[in-house]
Structure formats: structure tokens, C-alpha cells
């Protein structure tokens, strides 16, 4: 490759097109930045003093934000902010930013990267397992992530390709069958337990195949998957085989696997889309509310690269039909949204900007 591509890259030809700007302009930019930094240190000190002297209210939407542009700005709600920080970390470290870079984010409609081929979830009476009021012990074990490894799985990491329909085919690093298996096996069974609730699905082998996934924002992609053979089931259980980045061997996980909501956590409404008005800091949310919401408070957490949004729903304390309604709300950011990525705190998925 070296000879042919090198010829296509001629530094001298490119250099002719480079027009250096005035050096004085750069010096002026640097001076402005130095002044801003000094102002920011001043403000940070003032805020620190204020926190020590009074109550942490100053932390919410307070003074001098323009100066401290890169510092995260919280909502003032500890539970929301904690989850927002987790999501951003998951995006940058957990592999989601990586698949987004590849141009491929599985849709929230997939729910999970573990998929069942057609066949197994249909019972003899023609009812799908997920429709049945009495799903089989096997299906319940699958949902709960109760698996048991019988015999070794391969630790090889063969190369794979993702084909985005109507788009590019990308070579991607895969996680090994062994590492991918660990994303299936999410629950343990107490020793000595024998009932249906303790059934574990025995995994005996894995072969490399593929699954067809819906993508966030529309479209589909064919993605490499490990097909796990389960003793006693007629079809394998598939799990997307992508690694979470080019550097690590850890398998990719979806936001709902990375950030499971605890049952006692507040119910954050899923934000479908946000809109900005150019030139303003206003951010309008579109989200699914309920017919009987007594209160809907939009909350936002901002960093340099991300804006995490959510709506805190307070339900009216009375019997109510569970009917969803489209709702909107508005918040003011500390600066224009710009090219920041918007994430929904409810499920960690990206939010469309319209």
C-alpha cells in the first residue's frame, strides 16, 4: 500500500494552499484567553468562599457562568446530577461514543443487544412467550439473565464487519465469545436452590453469526453476533459481538444495561426531541407525559460536550388511567447548545435535535 498511497499525498502541493494568518491575531487570542482564565479563577474562588460561608445554593444556576465555560453545570438535584455524570462517563468510556463514531447506534427500540431468533419464544399453543401470562421457566431465566457456562468458550477476537443498510460496511473489532457471554450471565442462583426460579440456561458453545438491528434515528444494520447454543433449546441466543472500543476487549453494552434504573428511583420521562431557537439559550423539550401528571419539571445537566436532559414527573395521588400525552417544556441553558450531544437521562439514549 505504501507506494501507491504515498504518491497520492504530496506535501508540497498541499503546502501551496496554506496561507498563514497574521501572528498578531493569534497573540491577541491568547491574551484574551489569559484574561478569561484569570477571571474564571476569580469567580471560582468567589463561589468556593460562598459555598463555605453560606449554603450550596450558589452551585445551581449562579454567578459568573460565562467565565467558567468548561465547568459542568448541575441541576441542583443530586439524584439527577449523579445519573447524568454516570451517563456521560458511560458514553465516553463505555463504548457508546465509539459506536456512534462508527455511525451506528442501536435503537432504543431494540431494548437489548441480546436477541432471540424466531422460533423459541413461540410456544406449542402459538402464543409468544412475552404475551403469555405464564411464561415458561426457560423464558423467565432468559429475562433474568440466569445462565451457566458448560465447557469453555473461545477467547479469539476475529475481525467483523457492520453493514449499515444503504451505508458503509465498517470493519470493527469484536469481543470474544467468552467476554460476550459475561454480558448474558447477569444473575446468580443460590446454592441448593432448585425451583423454577433457580433454573439456569446451560450454554455449551458459541459460533459467530449476525443479527439485524434497528438503528437510532432510523435504518438498519447487520451486525456480528455470537450465537450461543443452549442445551435444551432448539435455537441459539444471539448477543451482539462488538467490542466497546478499538482499544478494549470489553463487549459493547446499551445504555439500559450500563445505567439500569433502580426500582425506587424517580421516574424520569423519556425526552424524544429537543429544539433550540438559534441565537438563544432556550431548549424546548418534547416528551411523553401522563394524563394525570401533577407536576412536570424539566432538569438539565451541562458539560462542555454533553447536555443531559430529563423531566421529573410528579403523579397525582389518585386513581388514573395510564394514558400518555405529548408534552413540552422549556429550560434555559447557560450557553447555546452548539454542537453538544443531548442525552435523555431516563435511558441514556441520544436525543434528536430539531
Amino acid at each position, binding site marked *: 500500500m505504501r507506494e501507491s498511497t504515498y*504518491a497520492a499525498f504530496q506535501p508540497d502541493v498541499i503546502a501551496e494552499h496554506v496561507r498563514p494568518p497574521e501572528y498578531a491575531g493569534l497573540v491577541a487570542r491568547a491574551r484574551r484567553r489569559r484574561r478569561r482564565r484569570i477571571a474564571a479563577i476569580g469567580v471560582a474562588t468567589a463561589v468556593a468562599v460562598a459555598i463555605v460561608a453560606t449554603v450550596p445554593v450558589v452551585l445551581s444556576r449562579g454567578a459568573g457562568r460565562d467565565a467558567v465555560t468548561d465547568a459542568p453545570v448541575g441541576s441542583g438535584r443530586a439524584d439527577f446530577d449523579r445519573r447524568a455524570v454516570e451517563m456521560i462517563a458511560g458514553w465516553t468510556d463505555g463504548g457508546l461514543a465509539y459506536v*456512534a*463514531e462508527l455511525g451506528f447506534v442501536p435503537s432504543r427500540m431494540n431494548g437489548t443487544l441480546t436477541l432471540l431468533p424466531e422460533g423459541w419464544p413461540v410456544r406449542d399453543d402459538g402464543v409468544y412467550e412475552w404475551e403469555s401470562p405464564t411464561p415458561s421457566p426457560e423464558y423467565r431465566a432468559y429475562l433474568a439473565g440466569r445462565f451457566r457456562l458448560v465447557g469453555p468458550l473461545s477467547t479469539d477476537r476475529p475481525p467483523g*464487519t457492520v453493514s449499515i443498510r444503504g451505508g458503509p*460496511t465498517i470493519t470493527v473489532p469484536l469481543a470474544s465469545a467468552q467476554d460476550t457471554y459475561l454480558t448474558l450471565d447477569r444473575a446468580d442462583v443460590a446454592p441448593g436452590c432448585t425451583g423454577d426460579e433457580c433454573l439456569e440456561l446451560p450454554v455449551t458453545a458459541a459460533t459467530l453469526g449476525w443479527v439485524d438491528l434497528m438503528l437510532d434515528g432510523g435504518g438498519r444494520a*447487520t451486525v456480528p453476533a455470537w450465537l450461543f447454543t443452549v442445551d435444551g433449546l432448539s435455537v441459539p441466543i444471539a448477543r451482539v459481538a462488538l467490542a466497546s472500543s478499538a482499544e478494549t476487549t470489553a463487549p459493547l453494552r446499551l445504555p439500559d444495561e450500563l445505567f439500569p434504573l433502580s426500582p425506587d428511583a424517580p421516574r424520569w420521562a423519556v425526552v424524544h426531541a429537543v429544539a433550540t431557537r438559534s441565537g438563544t439559550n432556550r431548549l424546548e423539550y418534547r416528551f411523553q407525559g401522563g394524563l394525570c401528571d401533577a407536576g412536570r419539571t424539566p432538569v438539565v445537566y451541562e458539560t462542555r460536550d454533553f447536555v443531559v436532559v430529563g423531566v421529573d414527573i410528579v403523579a397525582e395521588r389518585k386513581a388514573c388511567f395510564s394514558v400518555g400525552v405529548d408534552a413540552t417544556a422549556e429550560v434555559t441553558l447557560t450557553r447555546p447548545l452548539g454542537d453538544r*450531544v443531548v442525552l435523555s437521562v431516563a435511558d441514556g439514549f441520544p436525543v*434528536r*435535535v430539531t
Partner: protein
Amino acid sequence: VDEHELGEVYAGSYRRLVVRLYAVTGDLAEAEEVVQEAFVRVLASPRRLRGVDSPEAWLFRVAVNLTRTRARRRQVLDRLLRRIGEPPVVPDHSADHVALMAALRHLPTGQRYALALHYLLDLPIDEVAQILDVSLGTVKSRLHRGRAALADLYRDDLTRVGGDHA
């Protein structure tokens, strides 16, 4: 190092730095922006250059890191939101050059940087590892995978065959 001395570095190195960054970014406008930003950062805190042997090499490294951060942010966004970005500015309009840069842009960034630094800029592998802050083995595997992927992309262009996952 003061503003005046940096001015000399600027006069001597700017053009060369932009060309090298262009190899990495595949976009001339982007290359100019990151090189300027690297200079602004050094001018804003000249102490950073204390004890640095070669300001140009140091600026190059800062600019490559800036590119990575900026690219990560922008790509995440563009692809997530299906925004159509500006087409890259490519100074050399020869068909081979445009095809090479287009193919490079399709690769995962890790592979693209490794290929650009090693093959287009002729940096030895250990220096590439140092600049990208990864191990020698990682650079080698990225070069290997990147070469294979690049070959695939060129082939795909001709035959339009999708992936075979069977």
C-alpha cells in the same frame, strides 16, 4: 520562551505543521484551526514549553491531540443526529488524492491516525505510539487492520459488495 521567539517558530513551522495535520484530519480547514489553536494555547501559557527540546514537535503533538478531541465530539454528534457536515476541504484535487483521503475518513479514527502518521508522514512506529499515547503493539495492530480495511474500501468501491456475515 516569549512571544517573539514563538513568532519565529510560527514563521518557520506553521505551514509544515498544517500539512502534517492535514494528513491526519483529511481536511485543510480543520488542520489550520487545530494548528492555530495549538499556538494560541502555547501563547496563553508559554511555561508549557519549558524544557521542551523541539517546539515544533511539541506543537504537532498538541495539535494531533486537539484533532482527536474535536473529531470525537463532532463525529459523535454528526452521526448521531444524521447531520450533514461541511464537505472536507481538500487542496489536492487529483483523483487519487481525493480517493485516498475519502477512504481514510471511513476508517475508525485509531486506525486512521496510525496510518496517516506512519505512512503519510513517515514517522517511525515508536513515535506514532508516543504521539497517540498507545503501546507499540496497538500501533502495529492498527496499521495492520487499517491497511486491510483500506484495501477493502478500495475493493468495495469497485464491486459494491456488502459484508458477508454467514
